């Protein structure tokens, strides 16, 4: 069973299209993510990165195309997305922690509700994940008292509590002050190191370059180019990829 899934991609996106009104945001996307792979999606604002990510767990309904998750088509009508979403964690740009709960309840809500886990057991799992992100002592803190970086780490722990097969990160550091981006990236890096399958939409080129296995460059609703970070950052095939990356390549920090 385990070997079976190893061989197959976790996510295979096929001919995905999505429009908002007359504006077509995704114009036929095909790509796949293998188990344990870390894929970063880069591209200019408005190129459809976030929409693509949100289509993967059906927060946006695609107009056409398929999203195969472990061989099941998420985009099919009447498919039980709720069940499949349990296996797909998502981290948002705006954290979206539940404001009416403390940190621990944020983490245990889904396991208790969906996995019928006991409160104590769920709390134990949650605490271990909070420990991972360095916030175990904040278990009973009000989420509004946390800093942005702490909130985002709680959000990651919350997603991990469902033991997802795949983690989606939608610009997880874009809403953070520059000096605290590092603490979130650090958590993501260690997740990647532990073999988590991840799709990351990001503007952090250093992360894309150093952590990911595959870099996908999106431009104007299509995947313009994809490849290993080494190839993408040292020798991009397309001029527009080069142009987009040039700003980052010149940056001595990367």
């Amino acid at each position, binding site marked *: 069973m385990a070997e079976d899934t190893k061989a197959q991609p976790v996510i295979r996106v096929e001919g995905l299209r999505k429009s908002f009104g007359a504006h077509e945001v995704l114009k036929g996307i095909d790509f796949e993510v293998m188990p344990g792979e870390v894929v970063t999606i880069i591209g200019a604002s408005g190129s459809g990165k976030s929409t693509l990510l949100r289509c993967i767990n059906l*927060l946006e309904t695609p107009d056409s195309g398929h999203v195969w998750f472990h061989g099941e088509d998420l985009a099919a009508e*009447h498919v039980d997305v*709720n069940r499949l979403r349990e296996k797909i964690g998502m981290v948002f740009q705006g954290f979206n922690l539940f404001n009416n709960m403390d940190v621990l309840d944020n983490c245990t*809500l*889904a396991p208790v509700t969906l996995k019928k886990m006991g409160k104590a057991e769920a709390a134990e799992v949650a605490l271990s994940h909070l420990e991972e992100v360095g916030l175990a002592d904040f278990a009973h803190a009000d989420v509004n008292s946390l800093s942005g970086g702490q909130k985002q780490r709680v959000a990651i722990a919350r997603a991990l509590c*469902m033991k997802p097969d795949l983690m989606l990160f939608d610009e997880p550091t874009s809403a953070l002050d520059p000096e605290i981006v590092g*603490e979130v990236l650090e958590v993501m890096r260690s997740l990647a190191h532990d073999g988590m399958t991840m799709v990351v939409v990001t503007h952090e080129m250093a992360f894309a370059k150093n952590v990911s296995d595959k870099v996908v460059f999106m431009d104007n609703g299509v995947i313009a180019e994809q490849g290993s970070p080494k190839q993408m950052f040292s020798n991009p095939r397309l001029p527009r990829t080069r142009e987009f990356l040039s700003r980052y390549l010149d940056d001595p920090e990367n």
Partner: protein
Amino acid sequence: MGSTTKGGLKGFLAADHRYVFLGTSVIALMGMWLSMQPRSTWSFLAGVYTLEVVMYYVLLAWVVVSLVALVNKLVRWRDYAGASPFTKPVAKRAERIASYVVWAISAVLFADRAIMGFCALVSSSIASDSNPRDFLSSMVYMAYEGRGVFARGIASTIELAIFGTAIAFFLAILLVFLRIQQIDRPDNDFVRFLKVVGCGFAKVYSAVLRGTPMMVQAMIFYFAGFAAFRSTGMSTGEVSAIWSTFVAGLVTISLNSTAYMMEVLRGGIESVDPGQAEAARSLGLSQWQAMTKVVFPQGIKNAIPALSNELVINIKDSSVLSVIGVFDLMFATTTVAGIYYRQLECYVFAAICYLILTMIASKILSALSKRLEVRNPGPVLGTSDVAATTGVAGDKADPQRVSALHDQKRDGTKG
């Protein structure tokens, strides 16, 4: 001002204020005016005439001293603050203490003339055999003579408002659940159909109930209910026993208020960041679970101030139910006004009663909502600066901060 906020009343009393002469002179003049008014039969100063004369002249003396100070200030405009005898520290303290005496004297005079005067008026009005001519006495007389009627009216106004609002609250919660249903992908066709019908019903309900006057609704519900019960073969008397005007009124006010409260709740729910529901859905929660566990608790909290306002509105709006003969405060007032044929006095009295009721209601509600108010966010604990300097590991290392956080939370939920 600083001392007021710092030491409260104590600090205020001990401070030497700038406008002591001006403010206290107004009070002194009011006291003198009161002293010139005729004494009522209840006056306690009637027996101590000399004392009142002394009090009057103390007030007068204050006004004279104030005048002297004013003249002094006008004449010595430039060096008043430094050279005037009135601005010496000792003089200032004396002025302050004297001003308390003036306030006290005026208060005694107020009690003697105004409060005791009103009490005397009340007692004589109550004892009166016929309706007195003057406005206030007549109002008191009718309020007293019609006390049973008014009490019954006030009681049912309160009952209508409280029960109506409570019933409406629960109905509104049910209705708003229908109203905010959206088609979700996993729904089968039957569920989709139910959601569309439910949402449509809620929309129509809200439009009709908010778009027609409650007075008309009261009429329709009352007579429709009456007809419905009659059609089961009951006699008019039997129907009246079940479908009383009070019950019809309660149904009207509940159903009417439901529509408004539903809209308030919907506003509260829609003001919740859509990211909250998205995050819940991304974890695999169904639309219903996301709604009940995440969005709704926050939405209700947002809506509480406006929801509690609905009780105050219902206290006032229940007055239109008198049109179907509900024995509320309005109906009671009309009844008493009809007996004595003195409308203005009666309706002013009713207005005072409604005002007192609504003021009590809003006081209680604001106290309640303060209790319900979830702890304020308080000091931001891990600010970005702290997080940046201490890093990931640093957050773990500060148990004191965390325990402070615990305490804060516990206090918040208890209080």
